[in-house]
């Protein structure tokens, strides 16, 4: 096998590999999203984070604007401390709401930021005060049962 021909084929082979990797990274994966951008960190406290995981999406109006950083339990105040990394490009008012919603019916949970009306914006290290916990299925069911039990009682009167 001539050396030149060998080199050409191997070169094509390696090039194909790089193209494939590139293809996977951009067209299949989400590398083109905000992962590589600069972010600033804020935090929020939740009684129940449900199924929220680190690296889960943080969305505003349905658009991904950041990623969840870390989630730890505070053993003194007995709530979860969620660190949120928001893309530098976006600023939110100080009275923004942070709610945990579910994507689709049985999908993954994400953090939704709903902007408030404050003049001042959140800075790095600030705390989001208004939070809404994740919906826990069991509580929903017991609430439903309690409500329906209450209705039955009223009917009995």
């Amino acid at each position: 096998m001539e050396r030149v021909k060998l080199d050409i084929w191997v070169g094509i082979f390696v090039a194909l590999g790089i193209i494939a990797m590139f293809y996977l990274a951009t067209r299949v994966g989400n590398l083109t999203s905000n992962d590589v951008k600069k972010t600033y960190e804020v935090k929020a406290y939740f009684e129940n984070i449900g199924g929220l995981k680190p690296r889960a999406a943080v969305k505003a109006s349905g658009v991904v604007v950041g990623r969840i950083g870390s989630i730890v339990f505070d053993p003194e105040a007995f709530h979860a401390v969620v660190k949120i990394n928001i893309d530098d490009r976006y600023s939110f008012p100080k009275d923004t709401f942070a709610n945990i919603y579910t994507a689709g019916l049985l999908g993954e949970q994400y953090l939704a930021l709903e902007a408030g009306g404050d003049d001042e914006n959140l800075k790095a290290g600030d705390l989001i005060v208004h939070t809404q916990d994740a919906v826990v299925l069991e509580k929903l069911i017991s609430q439903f049962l309690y409500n329906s039990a209450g209705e039955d009682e009223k009917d009995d009167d």
Partner: protein
Amino acid sequence: MNNILNFLEKLGASFRSALSGLGSGARLFFLTVIYSSDSFKRFNLTIKEIYFTGVLSMVIIVVSAFFVGMVLGLQGYYTLERYGSSEAIGVLVALALVRELGPVVTALLFAGRAGTAITAEIGLMKTTEQLSAMEMMAVSPIGRIVAPRFWAGMISMPILATVFSMVGILGGYFIAVLIIGVDEGAFWSQMQANVDFHNDIVDGAIKSVVFGFTCTLIALYQGLVAPPTAEGVSRATTKTVVISSLSVLGLDFVLTSFMFV
């Protein structure tokens, strides 16, 4: 009673030989690394081996990937449709390939094609005393024969696995979108939303590097220790495939539990 004792004895012996094989394999790896300078200074040696292990495997990899992708698309569609989630077919195909099937199936095919070729070649060189001749000419067979093939395998496997994933996804696209009629936009957008570069693609690439290391080292080792007869070499190639396949599947489980759980 004797039969049971015999069986236990054989089990113990095979366990011991497996352990000693592991040790010898590790020693081969360290020797290969020590003698690797030639593989890089005279890169032509390595390039030649990349051609034989990588380039010549491309056909089987691409064809297999396309079929695997198509089957994933087909099977996945009919299952997802029952839950009304047929638009998630893109996610299913992509994740299955990138995380698991890409690295694992490529490794199995690699072991079967390139691994057996390496084992047979080295076993034959041992049988015809070519390795001895090289030693007597003060040229290390490890540096000249083993190391280039090792690095070629390490370089080829990730490339083959990545190509496998890409072609597989295209195969899935072909079936799902072009044949069955799933919405193209939903196919790609759901995929992009749910396949994470760091967690899925990079982890799959790490797997393929580990598998490449394992399969290549096993193939080289079996070739070097093959008894210098025709029967010995042929048995060595069988051992390469069997041991490589089992190791890949076992390592896949270990790596998956580290990475994705």
